[in-house]
């Protein structure tokens, strides 16, 4: 009796799984058409949502422009926006990034990932997607080491590509440009001495290091370079220390989510009257809100042109975005749109060449083969490293609680 029941149980389990197997008699996806899936991987919990939601909007807009179809309507694009942040951390969470990456790798209907937003997250995701030849197009990562040999650590970016072929491209210029441009701008603004702070993260510290090196190169005096604790309640003591050295300009490499607002307030609170400069990580509405009056007069560098200054095709895009979503795009929104259109273009080329857009390898190669792609930002190509050939940089300044475009910087 007892033995029998064990067998019964086991055989029942086997039976059920057999039934399940046998029932899956549906037709396999036909090779000439069907649905392909594209996902975005951005932090959609916490205060970056203000920025990332508009990127998702931009991507949606790019796909909807073709009716969510490619290859003459044969393939339907199904777009899903995934969140790589967690409530626990309030920003991107390595746990979630890894889980997401594994999910994308395993879901063979996904042909490309648009993401990530944070360079640290990209470092985790690329090595998981690389062996699957799954293409990644980032609308926002700017850490140089992700693509450029020699610009990051010694073994970068090779260590992210276990199978030897890069699968990661980005449509924003990297920080080796932004940091240097920032230092040059600081000099142009008349600063002779700078103090550098960073939030110790991959993005912020990387940027601050480049700024530091460039500043030394062009003859600015670097009075100090210090990492801040992004969770501290206040920075009065630190700000006093910096203020005592009386730098012409204080540069902060970091993101809003690491307490940039409080830092700004306390720097102004201790009576510092000099210049303040930050990167695109604080070029967002959330920063203005957090820093309040203290943000006034802050100089910001940004890889690209801010939405208000877009010309020609890009301006048309901006207006259509505003009409569609009822709000102004944030600075990275246009890159979401460009990433989307670039992917559509690559998929079209795959079809034209007779390939299947469900084949990840082909799609990846098509993304990397992008040449003189006519985007709303102008023509650009993806080079062998996966970088965009656009290197426009712009500087903005905060006036009356708004970002105001100031000038185009370096690059070109």
């Amino acid at each position, binding site marked *: 009796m007892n033995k029998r029941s064990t067998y019964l149980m086991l055989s029942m*389990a086997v039976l*059920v799984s057999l*039934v399940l197997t046998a029932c899956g008699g549906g037709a396999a996806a036909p090779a000439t058409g069907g649905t392909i899936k594209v996902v975005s991987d951005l932090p959609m919990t916490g205060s970056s949502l203000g920025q990332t939601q508009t990127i998702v909007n931009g991507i949606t807009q790019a796909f909807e422009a073709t009716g969510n179809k490619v290859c003459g309507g044969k393939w339907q694009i199904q777009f899903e926006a995934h969140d790589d942040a967690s409530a626990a951390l309030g920003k991107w969470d390595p746990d979630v990034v*890894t889980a997401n990456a594994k999910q994308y790798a395993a879901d063979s209907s996904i042909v490309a990932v648009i993401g990530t937003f944070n360079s640290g997250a990209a470092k985790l995701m690329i090595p998981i997607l690389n062996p*699957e030849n799954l293409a990644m197009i980032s609308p926002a990562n700017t850490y140089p080491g992700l693509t450029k040999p020699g610009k990051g650590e010694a073994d970068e970016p090779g260590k992210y590509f*276990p199978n030897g072929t890069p699968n990661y491209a980005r449509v924003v210029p990297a920080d080796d440009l932004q940091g240097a441009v920032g230092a040059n701008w600081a000099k142009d603004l008349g600063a002779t001495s700078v103090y550098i702070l960073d939030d110790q993260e991959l993005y912020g510290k990387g940027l601050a290091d480049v700024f530091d090196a460039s500043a030394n190169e062009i003859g600015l005096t670097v009075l100090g370079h210090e990492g801040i604790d992004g969770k501290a309640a206040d920075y009065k003591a630190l700000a006093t220390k910096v203020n005592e050295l009386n730098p012409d300009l204080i540069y902060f490499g970091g993101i809003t989510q690491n307490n940039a607002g409080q830092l700004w307030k306390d720097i102004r609170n201790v009576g510092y009257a000099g210049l303040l400069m930050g990167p695109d990580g604080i070029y967002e509405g959330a920063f203005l809100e957090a820093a309040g009056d203290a943000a006034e007069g802050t100089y910001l560098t940004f890889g690209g042109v801010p939405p208000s200054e877009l010309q020609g095709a890009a301006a048309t895009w901006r207006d259509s975005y505003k009409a569609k979503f009822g709000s102004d795009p944030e600075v990275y929104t246009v890159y979401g749109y460009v990433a989307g259109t670039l992917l559509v273009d690559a998929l079209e080329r795959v079809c034209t060449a007779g390939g299947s857009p469900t084949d990840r390898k082909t799609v990846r190669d098509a993304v990397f083969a992008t040449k003189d792609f006519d985007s709303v930002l102008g023509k650009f190509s993806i080079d062998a490293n996966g970088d965009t050939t656009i290197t426009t940089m712009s500087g903005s300044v905060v006036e009356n609680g708004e970002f105001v475009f100031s000038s185009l910087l370096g690059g070109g």
Partner: protein
Amino acid sequence: MLKLRPALTIGLAAAFVTFLFGGWSIVVIGLLAGAMTGLNYGQRSLKRTPREIGQEAIVPGLVAAGMVVLGGVVFSYVVTPAVGKPLAYSLFLKFGKTAVRMDYFFVLMISIVAGVLLGALASWYMASIQGLPEHTRRARLIIVLVVFLLIFPFFEQITNMQWMAAVITVQIFILLALGLNIVVGYAGLLDLGYAAFFAIGAYTAGLLNSPQIDISWNFWLVIWIAAAVGSVAGLALGAPTLRLRGDYLAIVTLGFGEIVPVVFRNLITVTLREPITRICFVGCDPVKEVRNACLYACTGPLDLTAGEKGINPIGRPLIPFTPENLFGANYLPWYFLILVLILFSIFLIRRMHQSRIGRAWMAIREDELAASQMGIDPVKTKLMAFAMGATFSGFAGAFYGSYISAIFPGVFDFSVSVIVLCMVILGGLGNMVGVIIGGILIMGTDRLFLPQMATLLKGFMTATVLPNVSHPALRDFLTFSLDPIQFRLMLFGLVLVIMMIVRPEGLVPSAERRAELHAGDEAAGAPPLEAEVAAH
């Protein structure tokens, strides 16, 4: 006369899951609910033979499974339309790389049939083995459990339920909770900085198996080193703090738990110099000149932990004769690896608990003075508890680092310590079954239910509620403020407070605790798994 209340309670709790997930979850949850019900009825049955007990439990099993199915049906026909999803979307079955599409209705039918059948079967079986002698019963229980744990991941992969990431996280936390249970549950020392040992394990494993300082030892070696370093750290923390009792100890461990992540975050420019040699008396200025003997990293400061950037990438485990990418994007090897680690830990902890040291822990917990009078060395015993607790978090840390393939100091904060503490307290201090159940409940809620609830609620708001609400402030409140994920801290807090007030011994208390707290109202030594499981 059959009493169906326990079956209804279990069914209701389980139906809540299928109400949120629907689809294939009906099968898994139906099976589990049936098994729970069977266990419950079998234990309180007055019948003697396994056959009679089993037959008696079939109806309750059917009831519980039926409620689970009902939850699933409600999900399909009420929840899905209410959140604005089309009912007819198709599902996939995945066999390796090939995906097979299935009709939604078809999936629902199969799940319902399989859920009810498996539920009744599980109930019958779990009840009937209660009539067997103690050791056979235990063996059967273990076999069934092992079979379930073996089949589940494959079923999950084939049906594409996407629970695996959450399940592995739950497992990691269970391993942590088992370790903390030694310190808090067995030895009665409140440790509020347990995440520190987790971090120490993870960083040890990360440093020894990554390009960070150019050491890449094999994972199978590193995991032992991580455990050993963890236990040494436990000793190091334990030694000076043993004089302290109760809340003072809790505070010191809390301080330690806050310091450790700061240390890992900031060890990015390491150089060691001997300080005495810097003092000089003639012809030099110790303040201005750095001229003391350098001992370590003299050519330039060493970046030991990579700070906030984290150690990345950390090597994966390699098994000879298997593909190098076995532990890659695939979840299954990770699932089984952590499962083996947990089973191994349970085995070790069990042995310890039943040995001399285990009894010493309990004696210390109950009355330190009396225990030391009886010849137990309190210092040694407490140190041992700290060291052993830290060992298992060392395992968990090494696994975690390799699984995520990177580690960052920000993940080891105070809330991790409290979540693990929550699990131990909810399940039942000092009882491993309880701790595991507590772990599944807390982390399952955190990683599976809350996100799913958030998604559904968001859909429900946009699809059903918002079209009928015109007041802008109310609209904003409904969409923005009512986010279940934002209430996760509240959940942990409520668990702690309510458990302390209502049921300080936990859901599944250890036999000793129960005997203490309910001395007199029933004979001690009742089997640990009982109606309590059902009640929640």
